[in-house]
Structures are given as structure tokens and as C-alpha cells.
């Protein structure tokens, strides 16, 4: 697990405090009942804050799982992947 993944897990823990930490890396909109439209926006805003980046909201709407978000972050922030 790289630092980016660890940081994203922490973000998920903040937005979905009831989620078991071990299940976060497999989390998706289908598997997490609380991942509704409000939670999705909150998740995006917390990611922006914590990763100091601005997400493309149109694209971010298609990111519906932890792994997709992690892949997207690695794509848009390749230089800081190992921070």
C-alpha cells in the first residue's frame, strides 16, 4: 500500500465512519448503503482538500468505487503518488 492509498483510506474513514477499515479498499456505491449523492459530493470535497487537488466533477461522477477513485488520483497526480 502506497501513501496515496493510505491517505484515501483515511478519507473514506472520515466520510463513512461506520465502514469497517478492512472493507474500504473494496468499497463501491453498490456495497456502501450510505454512499448517496450527498456523500459522493462530500467524498469529492474531502479528497480535494486532503490531496490538494481539484477534481473534474463531470468525470468524478463516474468514479463509483474506492479502486476507481484511487486509479483516477494516480492518473491526475502521478508525481505525488509516493508522497
Amino acid at each position, binding site marked *: 500500500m502506497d501513501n496515496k492509498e493510505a491517505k484515501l483510506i483515511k478519507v473514506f474513514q472520515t466520510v463513512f465512519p461506520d465502514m469497517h477499515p478492512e472493507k474500504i479498499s473494496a468499497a463501491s456505491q453498490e456495497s456502501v448503503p450510505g454512499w448517496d449523492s450527498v456523500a459522493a*459530493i462530500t467524498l469529492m470535497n474531502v479528497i480535494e482538500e486532503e490531496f490538494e487537488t481539484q477534481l473534474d466533477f463531470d468525470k468524478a461522477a463516474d468514479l463509483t468505487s474506492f479502486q476507481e477513485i484511487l486509479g483516477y488520483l494516480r492518473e491526475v497526480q502521478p508525481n505525488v503518488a509516493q508522497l
Partner: protein
Amino acid sequence: MKLSEALSVIQRAPVDARPFPVLLACGFSPLHLENYLAAHLQAVLPDRKVRILTGLYDDLAGTLEQFDPANAQAAAIVIEWSDLDPRLGYRKLGGWGERVAANILETVEATLSRLEIAISRIPVSLKVALSLPALPLTPAFHTSGWQASGAEIALRELVAGFARRLIAHPSVLVLNEQRLNERSKPDERYDLRADLHAGFPYTLKHADALGEALAALIVPPQPKKGLITDLDDTLWLGLVGEEGHDGVAWDLASHAQLHGLYQQMLGALADQGVLIAIASKNAPEVAERALARPDLIVAREKIYPVEVHWDAKSGSVERILKTWNIGADSVVFVDDNRMELEEVRAAFPETECILFPKADYAAGLTMLRRLRDLFGKPKLADEDAYRLESIKQNRHLADVTGNGDLAEHFLASAEASIGLEFDPPATDRRVVELVNKTNQFNLNGVRYTDAEWQQSLQNPDCFVAVVTYQDKFGPLGKIAVLRGKRTADRIRIDTWVMSCRAFSRRIEYQCLSQLFQRFGAQEMSFDFISTPKNGPARDFLSALAGEPAAALTREAFTAKCPKLYQKVIQKHGQ
């Protein structure tokens, strides 16, 4: 506060705590304003579980009209231009420019009227924090950006009039635009992306600042009660012992205006009931000559007591606190000397110690604004004007206490009268204020919101008695509140507070005597809980009944009640 921090604060709220529901009424998606408001309220209410209730999207007036006040402890109402006319926002395309300006003004006026009626109907027991439009107006007007159009000025005039009328409502508190501007720059508030994608118009930074400000209106910090000031290089510029009473200055021509402004601030604070005292190391007769100068801006008679000598200032502060009969956490100490500040801080860690910045004008301005924050009150009450006089009276009483005959004579000749108002109207906010701010003579220290207090009075067996006092020295205003329930020939008191200004007048005895008589009760019990500060209540009840929570029979009370001299006037409020 970062959004993740706000979420963490909300998550740390105690699960089983008493709920603190607050309505957040706004026309946009509440989203992160909801999080930030909850987080800031939770931070100041660590023993409660804050819950934010929200309303209808895009229908602020409808949310207020459908709101059931019984469900909330307070309401935060956030108005934006787009709530007043959608053409003043970015999510609707109804037209901009001079062609529609007049029609926009008509719509805004009508919407404000509707909002005003809805807000006016909110019961006075519910605190309302109102935020006026804070986002920049859209570029919908015919002038260039640096020229105000007539329509923009008319819009602001309509909103100002709306706020001016609502501020007369006893429970409406309007957010100060100036303070919000300092915490959140106007041009960094609007987030077009979030508005168009999520219906949430604010940047996170602005949502944080607005949430914090609304929380401060709903749960304001307790205002400080007294200020103790140094003299040399603080109340005035210069050392009076060296330069003489005519040599010290507080005027513009002497480059001492900061000291004059400080005196002006003390005068204003004294007028609103703040106690002002002096703690100075000086020869008393020299200092008194300077204090007697007719150009002194803070009135000399508003300053009491004056401790001028060469002993430690912590000793002066201790005596002043005793005279005022308030705790060290309720006062502010101002001095230009860091060593003096440290000496006082070491003796009274709860006291806020402020350095008077002699030559630093920016710091001076910050200090004046800090004083406003520390002493600011949401609304002024008549009792605020009586505070100093009642303390001076107490001093007379203290002088004769210990000499039984003199004390008895003092009480007998005081021409005292007590007013007992039963079940006062809900508009009397002084009742809950007194319950919440009284520490020493307080049965159990339980605090209430206005809404909680009013809800608790629904029981037909419940009664509230508000006590006012005056004697030949002047009125003390409302000084005590009792709340209880009567069943058969018993009374159970669950709330009893009495201002420390009213001690030593046997008012507490008269209160119990009147309750026994009015309800024909034979026994009274008290929901006493010990707190770090309610020693006076504990001692009084223990002396009467053996222990503070013990039942008190009428017979035992009558046997121990001293002679009461006050004339009593009963009144029924509702």
C-alpha cells in the same frame, strides 16, 4: 476548519447525549454548511448531540412556513440573493439587465415580505440566527463593475429595511456582515462549479466561516462581567507619579488618542452594565487627582472599586472580585506591564489578561475589538443598568454584617419590596438568561435553551416565579427565578437561582415563605446537585434542612426563618 475535521467533530459527538436540534433554513442544498454548522455547534456544546434539520430545496419561505418550532432548539436562516429572485443566481436563466431590473426589485420586495411574516411567526422562545445575502450580486446590471447601479443600491436598501424590522423581534439575531467579511473575503465565497453541480453555492472556506458565525449567534460565549484596568500607560499615557495629574494625557494632540479611545470603550461598557475597577501601583492621592479631572472620558463614578497602593496587583484583583462577588473567569484584566499581567495570571489563571499595547496602533485596534467581543451582549436588559449601584449597596451591607444589631437595623430601614411574578410571559428572556448565567446561588447548575425552558412549562402543575427587588437605594431588577411543581401539599423545586447582587437581604427566605403561603404547602424538596461554584445555595439549604437535598417542612422553615422586612407584591404573568 477543514471539512474532514468538521466531519470528525460531528462523529465524536456523544451518542446518548441530550439532542440539540437546530433548523438550517436555506434555499440551496445545505450540504457542507450543514456540516460546518453542526461541527461548530458541537464544539461549543460537547455534552449535547447536535442535529441539523433541513427544509425544502429552492423554497426558503416554504421551509419557514412549514417549520414546526417544537422540533428545534434554534433556527439558522441563511438568505441568498437567489432566494429573493432566482434571476439573482446562476442556476436559472430568466434574464439579466435593465429590462428586468424593475421586475426583480418587485419580486425581491414581495419575497422579503413573505419571509418577514414567516420569521415573525417563530415563537420568541426559539433563538433565530439570520444571515442576510452574503454572496456577490451577479453581473446582471447595466453599469460597469466599479459603478453601483440604482438597482443594486435599491436591492441592498430592501434587505437592510427587512433586517432593521426583524431585529426588533426579541429572538432574532442578525449576523454582522462586517465580521463575516473579515473571516471570509467576499470575492472568495462563491463556487460556481459547486453551485451548478450540487446546488451548493459556497466555497468550503466560506461555509466554514458562515457556520462558525451562525453557531456563535446561537450559542454565544457568556459575556464577561467586569474589567480591571491599570492606570499609567493604560487608562492614560504617562506616569502620574512622575508627571503629575495634569501631565498624563489621553487626547489626540498629545499623541495619546489610543488611551482616550480605551476610556471611551470603558465608558460604553459601563453604560451597558459592565463593572469597571482600577488596580494600580501608585500613591492613591496622586492617582485620585488625575481621576478627578473633568476631561476624564469614562465617568469617575462608574469606576468601583479603586485599588491604588504599592502592593501586589493579584491582591487588588482578589479584593475587587470579592467586592463584585463574581468569579475570576468573569473578568478581564488590562495592563501595559507584562510582569503585572503574569503575576495576576498566575494567581487567577481563569482571568483573561490583556496587554495594553502602548505604541502599537494596530494592536490597539485589535484590543478594542477584542473587548467588544468579550463583553458584547445579544440584547440589553434593564438590570444591566442597576449592577454597579447594587454592588455599592452591598458594600454598605457588608460594612454592617457581623454586627447583628446594625445589620438588623439596615434591613429594617431599607424600605425593601419584593415583586413575585408567577408564570411570566415567554417574551421575558431575562428569566432563562438569569438561570443560565447564575453560578453561586444555583440549585443544580442545569442550563436550558429558551425552547427547552418553555417546553418544560407545559405541565399544568409546573410554576415559575420571577423575583424583583428594590429598596430605598434603588432597584436591583429581576434577581431570582424559581421553578417547581406542586402536588397535594408538597412543592418540588427543580430550578432556583438568585443573583449574587441580591445576597444578604433575606430574599431567599422570603421566596420560600411566599411559596409555602401561596400553595398552602407543608413540605418542600429541592433538586440540589453540587457544582464547583454553588456553595452559597448548598450552605443556605443545609442550614435550613440539615443537608441541601433534604425535604424542608413548613414547621422547620418557620422555626429557622429570620424576621423578614420586605413588602411583597404578587403578580400573575399569564
